[in-house]
């Protein structure tokens, strides 16, 4: 039932929501999250490092899709979802561009909101992607895994 895609192309949020809800009369709430590349200081220090102008995301073709399928199945087991879409871009994305889209629909708002938060927390921390920040000077720096992100995702283990 879920639509899952790992792709280089951008996505159209409005079209994805429309596709998920078309002809449905049982949906009461649709939660949605869009992650975008934001302007930020360089990897180490704003003054010393040139600003980041793009992100490059690498994935493990096959494993990444399977891992997303598994976490979506886990969300579907936790909450009574009536539809779910996960689209994650890979490759190089410039500041301001879309990275990831999560949509979760349910008959009630709480399930839709909780499933959306659960999925994006996992995608942003545990999903098999590797992130490189590209500076204006052409230097790329691989981002190290962050403890804070792990904590956000860990909250869900105790639910």
């Amino acid at each position, binding site marked *: 039932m879920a639509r899952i895609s790992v792709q280089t192309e951008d996505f159209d949020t409005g079209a994805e929501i429309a596709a998920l809800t078309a002809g449905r009369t049982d949906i009461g709430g649709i939660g949605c999250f869009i992650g975008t590349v934001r302007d930020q200081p360089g990897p180490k220090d704003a003054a010393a490092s040139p600003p980041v102008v793009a992100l490059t995301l690498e994935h*493990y073709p096959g*494993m990444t899709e399977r891992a997303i399928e598994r976490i979506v199945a886990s969300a579907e087991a936790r909450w009574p979802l009536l539809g779910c879409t996960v689209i994650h871009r890979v490759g190089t994305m410039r500041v301001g561009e879309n990275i990831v889209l999560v949509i979760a629909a349910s008959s009630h708002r709480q399930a839709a909101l909780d499933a959306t938060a659960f999925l994006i927390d996992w995608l*942003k921390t545990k*999903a*098999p*992607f*590797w992130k490189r920040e590209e500076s204006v000077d052409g230097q790329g720096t691989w981002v190290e895994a*962050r403890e804070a992100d792990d904590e956000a995702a860990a909250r869900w283990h105790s639910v």
Partner: protein
Amino acid sequence: MSKPLTILYFAWLRERVGRSQEELDLPPSVRTVADLVTYLADRGPGYATVFQNRRTVRCAVNQEFADPDAPIHPGDEIAFFPPVTGG
């Protein structure tokens, strides 16, 4: 003839090793992921850099996250990568 291992490298491990994929006949000394790491660390400077600090290396066997003591069999797809950063 047993099938060779397919070994994949991602992110900065790929850059250090200098390749994204290689095939390798399962060496007789290798029964686990940890054995394979020890074996690979001896293959040259790029490999040594990557596999010396094992705390920063993660592994998947046949597209499932695997511990150092996970067994390895002929034909397996073994991937090495840094801790995932998410999307």
